[in-house]
């Protein structure tokens, strides 16, 4: 025993960790495997089978957590680059082509910064407030349908859940502002409380008309009702509602021109003034996740969710064509399939690199081959993507959904590059004097129209 201790004392820190772990794995590993195979495995499967809903929820929230990070990175990169071009600048362009990784680099750097809390701050609240902000943002994702069936939790009261959870963001901001023990933070937190609470009302009311029209609170159902052509989208039946929802959404996401909570020129960085390191990273992330959520919501409610703007079946029907279908059955080719897999890449690569080589004098052969290979890969990916798009509903839905959502993200970024900031009294006045009556008007007109149309027998 002493020999073992002595030799353990000689190994490095890494070794001290690794060697006991190895021993543990060697001894415990087989035991666990046997147990898993005989007893625990069937039991887990049984439990999972009987609790499919919960399992689905856990998988979904994990997926969404994983998804929210690249989404935020892409939006941050987009903001850096788009605003740079609006400013007649180039923007970040050092890490990866066109500086594509600069947002990731910044995120990682923030992660490795020192993370401390001020002396007089309420440490518990100070630590957990960013988590709360981020968590509410991510929880909102749960009910957003990214495509047909691609939804974390298909609640039938999805809208209600959305507003209930979305409204909790302000609690996180308020806690962050209050616990920092900084007057700028406090002002920022209070401003965000006033702002979000005020804009929550027109935001919710603007959707009530839509609910009356759709007759449901389920987001999935609302999305399905917008299938078909562009003019089936709710934005054409609820233009005022869409406008109010958009404006209130900008205010909810704390974006320019309503970014009073972190107004640089007034209250330094608002509720985030005292945050550094990863806690600041959380707040920063949550802001951009919120931007994506707002865009996604606008798309889901008013801009046809995952539906394509063209009803492809109707078009095909007009030309008396059968619905397009991929007739390729790979299994029927038999041995030929192997031949294709072996030869096709080579031939296609050569075929693609030949024109490149011939058309450009300065191109050496190996470079042309590389270009050809890349083109071939792109071709294959494109073909596979097209096949997936045609074959699977959810791929098509995801493509359209992301496209539309990022168009709205672009609008958010555009506004940031363009607008000055409004003042707090103008902000509140706008919410209560204009948006709220307009939302109510929208609601009454919708209800009135529905009653009239129903009594007239038109649906």
């Amino acid at each position: 025993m002493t020999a073992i201790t002595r030799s353990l004392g000689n190994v490095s820190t890494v070794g001290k960790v690794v060697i006991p772990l190895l021993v543990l794995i060697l001894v415990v590993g087989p035991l666990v495997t046997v147990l898993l195979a005989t007893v625990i495995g069937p039991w887990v499967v049984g439990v999972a089978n009987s609790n499919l809903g919960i399992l689905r929820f856990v998988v979904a929230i994990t997926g969404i957590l994983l998804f929210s990070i690249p989404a935020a990175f892409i939006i941050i990169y987009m903001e850096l680059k788009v605003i740079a071009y609006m400013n007649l600048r180039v923007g970040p362009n050092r890490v990866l082509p066109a500086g594509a990784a600069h947002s990731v680099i910044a995120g990682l750097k923030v992660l490795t910064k020192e993370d401390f809390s001020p002396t007089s701050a309420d440490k518990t609240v100070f630590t957990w407030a960013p988590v709360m902000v981020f968590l509410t943002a991510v929880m909102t994702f749960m009910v957003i349908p990214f495509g047909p069936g691609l939804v974390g939790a298909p609640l039938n009261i999805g809208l209600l859940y959305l507003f209930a959870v979305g409204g909790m963001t302000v609690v996180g901001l308020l806690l962050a502002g209050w616990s920092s023990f900084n007057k700028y933070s406090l002002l920022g937190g209070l401003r965000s409380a006033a702002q979000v609470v005020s804009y929550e009302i027109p935001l919710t009311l603007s959707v009530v008309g839509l609910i009356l029209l759709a007759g449901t609170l389920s987001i999935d159902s609302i999305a399905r009702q917008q299938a078909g052509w562009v003019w089936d989208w709710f934005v054409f039946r609820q233009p005022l509602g869409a406008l109010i929802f958009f404006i209130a959404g900008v205010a909810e996401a704390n974006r320019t021109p309503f970014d009073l909570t972190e107004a640089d020129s007034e209250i330094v960085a608002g509720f985030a003034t005292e945050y550094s390191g990863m806690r600041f990273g959380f707040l920063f992330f949550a802001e951009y996740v919120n931007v994506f959520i707002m865009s996604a919501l606008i798309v889901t409610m008013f801009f046809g969710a995952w539906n394509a703007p063209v009803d492809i079946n109707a078009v095909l029907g007009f030309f008396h064509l059968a619905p397009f279908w991929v007739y390729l059955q790979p299994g029927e080719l038999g041995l030929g399939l192997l031949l294709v897999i072996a030869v096709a890449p080579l031939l296609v690569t050569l075929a693609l690199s030949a024109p490149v080589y011939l058309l450009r004098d300065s191109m050496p052969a190996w470079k042309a081959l590389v270009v050809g290979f890349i083109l071939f890969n792109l071709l294959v990916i494109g073909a596979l993507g097209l096949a997936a798009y045609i074959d699977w509903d959810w791929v098509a839905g995801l493509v359209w959904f992301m496209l539309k959502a990022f168009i709205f993200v672009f609008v958010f970024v555009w506004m940031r590059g363009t607008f000055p900031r409004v003042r707090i009294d103008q902000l509140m006045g706008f919410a209560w004097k204009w948006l709220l009556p307009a939302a109510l008007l929208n609601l009454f007109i919708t209800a009135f129209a529905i009653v009239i149309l129903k009594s007239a027998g038109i649906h």
Partner: protein
Amino acid sequence: MTAPVQPHYPHPSADDPRIMLDAQIGQYEQVPPYPPRTEREAEFYTLGDGEMFLNMGPQHPSTHGVLRVVLKINGEKVVDLDPVLGYLHRGVEKLCENSDYHHIISQIDPLEYVSSLFMEWAPVMAFEKLMDVQVPRRAEYIRVLTGELLRIASHALFQGWMALDLGGLTPILYSFIERDEIVEMLAAVTGQRMLFNYFRIGGVNGDLNHEFMSRLGDWMSRAAVQHEANIGLLNENEIFVRRMRDIGRVDRDTALRMGVTGPNIRAAGIPFDVRRAHPYSVYPELEFNVPVRGSNGGGDSLDRYLLRLDEVRESIRIIDQCLHEMPDGPVMARLPRLMRPRPGRAWAAVESPRGLFGTYVISDGTDQPFRFRIHDPSFVHLQLVGMLMKDNLIADTMAVMASLDPVMGGIDK
């Protein structure tokens, strides 16, 4: 001589009872930490019900440098405020009193770093009065030309800062393009981008050169159009206009009593422009208007903003006239190297982009001035902030302060 040894002091606050107490209570709100010394300080540092202090600066994004403003706020409303200066006090006056007359030009240059040619102009004029020097006409035209160029650059920066303080990101970058072009142009003739050190007693340091003229020609060919485009960028923005209208209104009487000059007094409806009120250089020979804005009730932030845009238009006119009317000839008077003016006093004032910039020199017969006094317009204008901001919102502080266009270098000397 041995250098003084830096003694090692124990941590002074380790057992400081006041700090210990603060740590126990958890607050550090004793502002100021000493008993009030003046009536005004006692009044300001007494908190009413529901009020608190908010300390802005010396490092704050919108205080235009190292100004510190202590706000007494009630919620979002500013009850009172107390600007604290001196964070950039470089002792320029004392340094100038210890430098000879040529040297002073470079000492005073960085005072108002946005428009440093005007900082050279006033002392140079004062020295010329003191020494009875006649400046060649070409040199006077060059002074006017470069000065007006710099005025445009300064007003362009003002436009950008105004937008930045109201939360707009983009205009500042556009105005910096304009400013960089002008500054590079001036660098071609002076050799420096910001602190030109170009004017001399009795003329300017070097004639205009080819690169300057070609750059200027390029710029002039599109200056007016570009200016109108820059105006359109902000003036048609509803948020921007609403943020500035009816904020920080200065009426005529206040403007006079507070010693306001420059664009700020013209925006209050009083056509006081040193170039016309007390003409110097070749300004009497040039045609330009003194733009005035503001109704009977005085001018608000928007007036001050718009007036500067009007001034840019006039400056472009002046530059055009200078280019057409500039005579040939020498750019420096013949002067001895070592200057010992007769004992006497001289005062000279120029219209800088911010207002009346004056210098007052007393000579005692040596090659250094006995007393050298600098009067900077921003210093006077900043006083207004305390008066204008009462019962406005925190966000308006930025709008008003930006519209007064203070530069801390000049304020703090």
